[in-house]
Every structure is written in structure tokens, then in C-alpha cells.
């Protein structure tokens, strides 16, 4: 499967963990599960903000079908973060995930999204939504 066939480099996980942990709104990052192609992380945030469960993926391009597959296997996640060199996801992947209440982000977008909850969290990375509504 595309979600299983690329190797999620351990360096990528370490980079993710360091970047997220150094964020102003984050108290701790726990890697709950890690394997060849993905990791699941729990992010504890400050100021009474809810914890986040993130699926960290290394894929060529995250597609709508990948989102369906991730959500079937991990229905309790809050977001999918693409950390590959390609750093790509499709608009349809983002839209479908949003309908399920799940965010789809690159790492850079995720670092911005950590400041928010709810719709603003889900919309981080959508240029139009940010410009028009906030």
C-alpha cells in the first residue's frame, strides 16, 4: 500500500518530535507507535487546549484514498502530518479529512495549526479560508 511502502525515516520522526516539542503551545510529545512507514504521536498542549493524536506519514503524495485508509485503521486520530521530502497532499485529501474532523498538514502547517482548535485548526494550510475568514 502507498501508506505502507515508503520508509518513514527515524530521522524524520526525531525531527518531527524536536520541532513540535519546541513549539510555544506544546508541553510534551509522545511517540505512541512507530514502524517502517508511519508513527502515531500524542501532543500535549498548554492553556487547556486538547491533546492531539497525529498520524505521521511518509508518502509521495497523500491522497483522498490514503485518508480513507488511515481513518479506517485509526479512527481516533486528529490529524495526518506529511513529513516526506515530497511534502505533498491533494486538495481532495484535505477536504475529505476536514469533513471527518481531521486535519491534513505538512510539518510547517502543523506547527502553525498547533495554535488553534476546531475549524481554524482544520483550515490551517488552506490559503483562501485563512484570508477570508480570519
Amino acid at each position, binding site marked *: *500500500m*502507498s501508506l505502507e*511502502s*515508503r520508509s518513514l525515516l527515524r530521522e524524520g520522526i526525531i525531527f518531527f518530535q524536536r520541532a513540535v516539542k519546541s513549539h510555544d503551545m506544546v508541553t510534551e510529545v509522545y511517540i505512541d507507535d512507530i514502524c517502517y512507514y508511519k508513527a502515531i504521536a500524542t501532543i500535549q498542549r498548554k492553556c487547556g487546549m486538547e491533546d492531539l493524536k497525529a498520524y505521521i506519514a511518509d*508518502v*509521495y*503524495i497523500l*491522497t*483522498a*484514498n*490514503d485518508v*480513507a*485508509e488511515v481513518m*479506517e485503521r485509526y479512527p481516533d486520530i486528529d490529524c495526518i502530518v506529511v513529513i516526506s521530502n515530497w511534502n*505533498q497532499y*491533494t*486538495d*481532495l*485529501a484535505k477536504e475529505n479529512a476536514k469533513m471527518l474532523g481531521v486535519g491534513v498538514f505538512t510539518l510547517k502547517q502543523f506547527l502553525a495549526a498547533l495554535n488553534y482548535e476546531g475549524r481554524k485548526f482544520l483550515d490551517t494550510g488552506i490559503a483562501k479560508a485563512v484570508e477570508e475568514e480570519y
Partner: protein
Amino acid sequence: MKEENFWIQELQKQLRKNTKLLSRISVLNVQLYLFGSACVCRHPNDIDIVLLYSFYDCNPFDIIELKIDIIDFLYQKYKLNVDMVVLSIEEEKQAHFLHQENAQLIL
């Protein structure tokens, strides 16, 4: 046979032999493309395939099942990892992944 044609022809041959799989590919109106090193090399580390489907005409779980079965079938044949990107036609219009990766049609 040219290096760049080897895997295209090999995959076409094997997939056409598997009539059940071929029938599902046809019913779901799916197209398969080869990209990556197997396009130019007879001994690649893995086989990179794009499965192109219509998002609005297909159940995503039928596509996931088909993907798993194609990967299993090809892995059994060649003992090579198969890396499959499942992309809808609608997403391809945005991403231009096939063009970007110079993908070649298998079926």
C-alpha cells in the same frame, strides 16, 4: 527488449493472465501507470505504480481492496516491494503527478 519497456510489458503480461484481477480493474474503470526506477531499469529495488480512479464513481474501500490485491499478486510474482500511489482523476488534475513522474501506462 529495451530496458525502459521491460517492466511495462512484464506487468501487462502478468496482469492480463489474472482474469479476476483484470475484471475488477475493468469494472472499477481503473488505470495503472508505472513510474520510478522500473521505467528505466530491469532490476529495480521496487516497483512504483499509480492507480488512477474516479473519486466520484468508486467506493474508496473497493479501491483499497483492489490495491491490496494487486500489490499482493505482484509481490508473489516478483518478490519486489510494490509502492502504489492511489490517485483519483480529480486529484491528478491538481497534482499532475503522472506528468511530474513521467509515468507510463500499464493498463
